[in-house]
């Protein structure tokens, strides 16, 4: 069995992933992460969201190691 990693999912993105923490096969960078996520949850493709690796929001493909914490953050509208 492949090594697993956890992804933290925030806000209404949880409605798509079904859980606030999801487990996926270990990936090596954020590009690979998105590919895996979009196959498993196609609806995520349409959502605006930020990716954070080790609590740093990233904008370019970023290396993920087996200690990294990864989070998906959507915008919130409510007030």
């Amino acid at each position, binding site marked *: 069995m492949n090594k697993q990693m956890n992804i933290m999912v925030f806000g209404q993105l949880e409605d798509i992933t079904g859980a*606030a923490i999801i487990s996926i096969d270990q990936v090596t960078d954020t590009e690979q992460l998105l590919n895996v996520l979009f196959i498993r949850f196609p609806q995520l493709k349409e959502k*605006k969201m930020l990716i954070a690796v080790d*609590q740093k*929001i990233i904008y370019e493909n970023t290396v993920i190691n087996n200690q990294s914490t990864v989070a998906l953050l959507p915008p*919130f*509208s*409510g007030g």
Partner: protein
Amino acid sequence: MKNKSSYERYQRQIILKGFGEAAQNALLQAKVLVIGAGGLGCPVLQYLTAAGIGCIGIVDDDVVSLSNLHRQVLFDTTDIGKPKVSAAAAKLSLMNPDTELREYQIRLTNSNCLDIFNEYDVVVDCTDNFSSRYMINDACVLKNKPFVYAAVSMFEGQVAVFNVSKDGKQNSGNYRDLFPVQPEQGEVLNCAEAGVLGVLPGIIGNIQASEVIKLITGTGDPLINQLFTYNTNDNRSFIFTYNQNQSASKMPLNEQEFHEMMYDLECVNNQQFEMDSEHFDAMLIQKNTLFIDVRELHELPAVTEFENVKIPLSELKQQMNALKEEQIVFFCQSGVRSLKAASMAAEHFGLGKRIYSLQGGIVSWKKIHEKQMS
């Protein structure tokens, strides 16, 4: 401190190490604009007033409703139907008569917001929609005002401090550095659709008020270039960092461009509602169809060619429940306000009605018909 009673009022925070009379005086001289007197706005207004902010502007065009009361704790059952700004100001002035309260019972738009922002030192975003949020962001960047952002969704909240001047150099990051482009309508559900735990905006609004106080007094470390998140379910909170300079692409570069931005419409799928004059004419003979002129009552040209009712855009929200027809066709002068009306109606009625907006407005419709007559 101007007198003994005001020293006594703030004594418990003045004696704080690292706070003192200097910080209190900074609060007493500060002017803060709070946009939105809802779930976030209520605690922000209460604690900023109690803390002794010198002048607070309150912007909200809504009235208090029963479904507000589980989270908007500044209001009570007797306030239902009253404008939020006046109901809030009445309570706040009893809490601290020294704070000057300015009421703006208006919807903030890109034609009125820059002038209002000029009057204040700090802007607090307590709004419940993306079009206001992006407009406030862009206006603060143009006017060089720091602003304290928060938003909530179901059980979670976000807080950040944006556009703070750093030694007169480049300002800190803003909302567009996080989310450069406005989400489309319906992409992110609001509290009315997705729900919100009543206590959540209380928690998040208080963190927001605390950031305002830190920013004004220069105490603590405000959430500059950071995004704070909190979840009531597991009590977990995180502080994420982000890079600046992602925001440039969609930002209006000057006031002229700002005035031309279509914040309300940016997140609306226009084609969904718009109908050309030919289809509009076909609608005129259909049953169970209501034509609504959303221009102000005095606006010309008058429309006598077909039966219609006049409900200015500013009054539409209050009259929405009185609209019984299955099909509603909005029109205005040029087609901009009617499109806004259509999107409001669609949000209100969901799939319950068919809703349209006359493309190009009544001016262009009249021109086409004059040509056909001659």
